[in-house]
């Protein structure tokens, strides 16, 4: 049953080293090994499988079973480059084979045509460097379809009148509607809006040896113990291993890419679990380490030829970070929804995807979804990760009504009444690319291996915050139309924590204003490729993973074509 898994020697020059095994890395590993190349995937986290995925909130969320470890990997934050950053947990990402796709929500919207050409359409935005992509929606469409069919996405083609054109329907029907979805759909239609079944990377039907979702209710933040969530772990990684040409090497922390005097990269240097250093030699390197760790790796790999960081002649590696603006409006209804059952999201609307800046007074657009993504402890503590790490008393998820006592009978009564009757509307929106917003190397703080830690610098563009507030108003209108008994929003405030990690090595035709070209090849180094959230030129409206995966399928085609023409080595 188990495929013959290759073990490559580090001295054996393989065709490709792929750094990272998440949404993009998994697909590149699968595609490149399927195309006949010998591939080593170096993943900093462990190789867990379904049997490791428990519902224990302490283990999974409190102890970061699936995610980056603040104790080993401290980070810092500041609002602007002039400030000294202070140590603070600044981001979360999946740190295991499969990456963030293991624990994500699995909202799988495609980007629309506008996301690729917005700069041409609306012109410059003061305080930002908005640019068009060097590729269009039409270039990416076949690859979106590939993601839906090969990785597994549930949805209903044609249900949203705003959807971009597609070449094929979804491979399986949408997941069942939840109570939050029914409430959302009815109220949105009263208001003349156009709700539709959420496209989700979760199986609604058994497919390719994987079972359909059993609605266990531990979805966002958790790994799927039945493999119904279409993570890279459950899909692409296994397909890559089946080729017999791909080795997944976990617990391998890449911290440097080596380069020879001819300006070609020669392999990736990593720590193994015992912190021994190795160099895995390769003809080419593909970095898919996410929008924070990819720029960090390039900056850590500075050398004589690239003193400011590998492939950073532009000086913009790590810059133009976009996090996606938006937040949650929570509501309580008269009767039990029991929305804790099942996956998070069952209905979405895109009526506000393309707002007219002339009319609303700011640039941006977004989508609303109906969800309940809280597990019991997170609900009661109102934001698990911060509470657990900091022991700070008030979380900022606001799952309980403002003013709820924090302990005692009234607290317990609120939990008792609200847990089954609560739903959320999540507003997802654009972030503008601002040069100062970045991931960089902290000058003082070091990780457990002695390497410079990540520093997040971020101050939301004013338009991003205006959009968030504008979408909150729409969420309140919807909840009024739905007859919610109570509703409240997270306060609109500047970001200090990163989840979506986008734009830090963006794609473009001009080597002065971008890091990679449309083939995902760095402008500076012929055999170095980057593909993950860092490649994005614009932020989309909040659900980046589908696009990251489509880009990965496309990048694999581009890289394969270059290799076959002998243009890499």
């Amino acid at each position, binding site marked *: 049953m188990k495929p013959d898994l290759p073990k490559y020697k580090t001295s054996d020059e393989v065709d490709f080293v792929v750094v990272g095994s998440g949404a993009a890395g998994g697909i590149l590993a699968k595609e490149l090994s399927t195309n006949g190349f010998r591939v080593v995937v170096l993943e900093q986290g462990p190789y867990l499988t379904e049997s490791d995925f428990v519902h224990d909130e302490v283990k999974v969320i409190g102890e970061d079973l699936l995610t980056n470890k603040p104790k080993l990997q401290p980070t810092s934050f500041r609002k602007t480059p002039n400030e000294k950053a202070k140590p603070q947990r600044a981001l979360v990402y999946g740190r295991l084979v499969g990456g963030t796709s293991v624990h994500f929500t699995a909202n799988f919207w495609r980007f629309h045509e506008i996301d690729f050409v917005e700069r041409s359409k609306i012109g410059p935005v003061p305080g930002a460097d908005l640019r068009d992509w060097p590729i269009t929606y039409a270039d990416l469409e076949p690859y979106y379809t590939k993601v839906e069919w090969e990785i597994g996405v549930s949805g209903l083609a044609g249900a949203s009148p705003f959807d971009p054109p597609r070449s094929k329907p979804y491979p399986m029907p949408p997941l069942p*509607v939840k109570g939050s979805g029914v409430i959302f759909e009815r109220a949105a239609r009263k208001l003349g*809006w156009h709700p539709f079944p959420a496209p989700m990377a979760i199986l609604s039907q058994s497919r390719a040896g994987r079972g359909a979702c059993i609605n266990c209710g531990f979805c966002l933040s958790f790994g799927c113990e039945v493999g119904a969530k279409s993570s890279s772990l459950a899909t692409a990684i296994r397909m890559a291993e089946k080729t017999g040409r791909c080795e997944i090497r976990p617990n391998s922390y890449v911290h440097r890419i080596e380069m020879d005097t001819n300006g070609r990269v020669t392999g990736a240097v990593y720590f193994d679990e015992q912190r021994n250093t190795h160099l895995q030699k390769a003809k080419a390197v593909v970095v898919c380490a996410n929008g924070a760790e990819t720029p960090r790796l390039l900056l850590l790999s500075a050398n004589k030829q690239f003193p400011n960081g590998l492939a950073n002649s532009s000086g913009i590696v790590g810059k133009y970070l976009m996090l996606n603006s938006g937040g949650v409006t929570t509501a309580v209804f008269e009767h039990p929804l*029991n929305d804790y059952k099942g996956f998070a999201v069952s209905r979405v609307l895109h009526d*506000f995807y393309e707002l007219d800046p002339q009319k609303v007074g700011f640039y941006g657009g977004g989508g609303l979804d109906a969800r309940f993504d809280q597990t*019991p402890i997170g609900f009661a503590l109102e934001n698990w990760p911060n509470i657990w790490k900091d022991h700070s008393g008030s979380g900022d998820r606001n799952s309980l009504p403002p003013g709820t006592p924090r302990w005692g009978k009234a607290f317990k009564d609120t939990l008792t009444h609200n847990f089954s009757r609560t739903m959320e509307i999540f507003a997802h929106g654009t972030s503008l690319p601002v040069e100062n917003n970045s991931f960089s190397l902290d000058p003082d703080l070091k990780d457990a291996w002695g390497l410079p830690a990540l520093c997040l610098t971020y101050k939301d563009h004013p338009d991003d915050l205006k959009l968030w507030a504008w979408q909150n108003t729409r969420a309140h209108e919807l909840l009024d139309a739905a007859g919610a008994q109570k509703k409240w929003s997270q306060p609109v405030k500047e970001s200090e924590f990163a989840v979506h990690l986008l734009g830090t090595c963006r794609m473009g035709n001009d080597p002065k204003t971008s890091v990679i070209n449309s083939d995902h090849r760095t402008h500076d180094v012929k055999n170095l490729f980057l593909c993950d959230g860092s490649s994005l030129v614009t932020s989309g409206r909040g659900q980046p993973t589908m696009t990251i995966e489509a880009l990965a399928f496309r990048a694999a085609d581009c890289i394969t074509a270059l290799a076959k023409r002998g243009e890499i080595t």
Partner: protein
Amino acid sequence: MIENLSRRNFLTRGSAAVSALWLSAHWPAVVAAAEHAHQAAKSSAPPKFQFFTPEEATEVDAIAACILPSDETPGAHEAGVVYFIDRGLTTFAVDDQKTYREGLPALQVRVRELFPSVAKFSAATHEQRDQVLRSLDEHSAPARTDSQSGGAPTFFHVVRIHTIVGFMIDPDSGGNHEGVGWKVIGREPEHMFQPPFGYYDKDYAGWQPNSPDAEKSKA
């Protein structure tokens, strides 16, 4: 496998909510989930104090019972929260040992400051206990300190978080004894669910297409 399933009583537990048709469609996933829950249950430890003395345990139990009181429905005491915290302090919450070792005596000092005739927290009336904890809560406004920067968590905040965690955690994970916490908040114990999930999706008539006259911007 079947023996495991019946020992865990998994399908019996699930069958009230799940039809045979749904079950057959989802069978591979259901078996995987059942095996999974069984393994998790097997690994949970029996209750036995490892960190607290019996006297300390009585005080912690009394604090937890103020945070999530027992009234018409069970509270922290019935959920065995003190056992969960005790186990936590030798496993996932080792860093908080000092907070308890120093916090419990300080709590008793506060009790005697406020109520000189009361020997210890657990001997106080319920009103007095609430008053003591309120004084600790007020004096420890939730500073947004970060564990990285060494901000010291206060005793009451830590006990509050641990109590809520021990009450709400998945019962297969060593807290929330017999799932009483979930019963209180209306979270059904099954490991899998079949729609309709609640009141609002019960009478959903099925998806009806949107009208095609969509305007893009509603602004």
